[in-house]
């Protein structure tokens, strides 16, 4: 009985450490937060942003794994949705940026002007796509 509990604990701790390393290096190395800090000229606060990411990860995981109920959740939900949406949007674009999607397409298609238009249409496309996905209950 105790043996299996200890084994489970070891599995759990190691799984948690590895998942944290993988997921959070994915967030940081894509430069999402560095991007935010640069855009808002608040690079002096990056340690705070790191704390914020760490807290978000820790609490988010606790809420998910233990299914904790949040008071006033109904009012917090749209705020959370908006902020998480901004983050994921930047994340998706940062991923595309790291994979050099834009330079490759721009070079292949010989696009030299109107690049902001393509970016705008991509943003609108992603937004409509997400709406369609949720509207159809996929």
């Amino acid at each position: 009985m105790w043996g299996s509990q200890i084994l489970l604990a070891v599995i759990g701790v190691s799984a948690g450490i590895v998942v944290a390393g993988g997921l959070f290096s994915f967030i940081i190395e894509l430069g999402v937060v560095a991007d935010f800090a640069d855009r808002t000229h608040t690079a002096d606060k990056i340690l705070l942003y790191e704390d914020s990411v760490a807290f978000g990860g820790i609490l988010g995981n606790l809420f998910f794994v233990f299914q904790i109920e949040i008071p006033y959740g109904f009012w917090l939900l749209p705020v959370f949705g908006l902020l998480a949406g901004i983050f994921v949007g930047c994340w998706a674009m940062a991923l595309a940026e790291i994979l050099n999607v834009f330079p490759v397409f721009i070079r292949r298609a010989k696009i030299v002007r109107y690049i902001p238009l393509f970016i705008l249409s991509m943003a609108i496309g992603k937004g409509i796509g997400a709406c369609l996905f949720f509207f159809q209950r996929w």
Partner: protein
Amino acid sequence: MPSNQTLYLKGERNIEVTKQDVTLGDIVSFECSDKTLIPKIKALRILKIRKSGKQRFVISILKIIACIHEKYPGLEIQNLGEQDIIVTYEEQKTPAFIWHIAKTAVVVLITFCGAAFSIMSFNNDVDVTKLFSQIYELVTGNSTDGFTILEVSYSIGLTIGILVFFNHFGKKRFTVDPTPMEVQMRLYENDIQTTLVEDASRKEEELDVGQSNSSGGYRS
């Protein structure tokens, strides 16, 4: 005129100036065995900004050397720093403190919610709940009730992993290394600076020798 002396200069890659007359002393630092020479060279004007508003100039180190040679021909100059220097001109203004705080707060909220959302979507995506119950059954033989040592230890492990990865909690650092985000921030700034320099040289806007735009003929 000392002719057997060497003037060493070293510049940072990115300089911010707030006055319209940019002298050499504003953008590079100098060392010379003839100490009387340094203040004279520092006072030489390299750039006169005519327009107001925020703008950028990329100055080649050759332009700076040419500027010194104009006054002191025969002086030997050694560059120990960057080869292209980005000069950003911004009018002096006290940044609104409240605005800075507000922006920081928004970024803190976005990163907090984003990280929470990411870990939850990851857990959901790989179906951690189901995997935990499978592991639990494999190890103990009993079915899980969803709240076992495995979930608790996973949460502890995740917390340890995040803190070890970020290498600090609050102001307390675990080692003297910079944190991953500090490294990433520098990399990002480096990329931006490289882009600015290469853009300027490709558009031939860089202030270099052999060009007429000696006083900042910057096209925007």
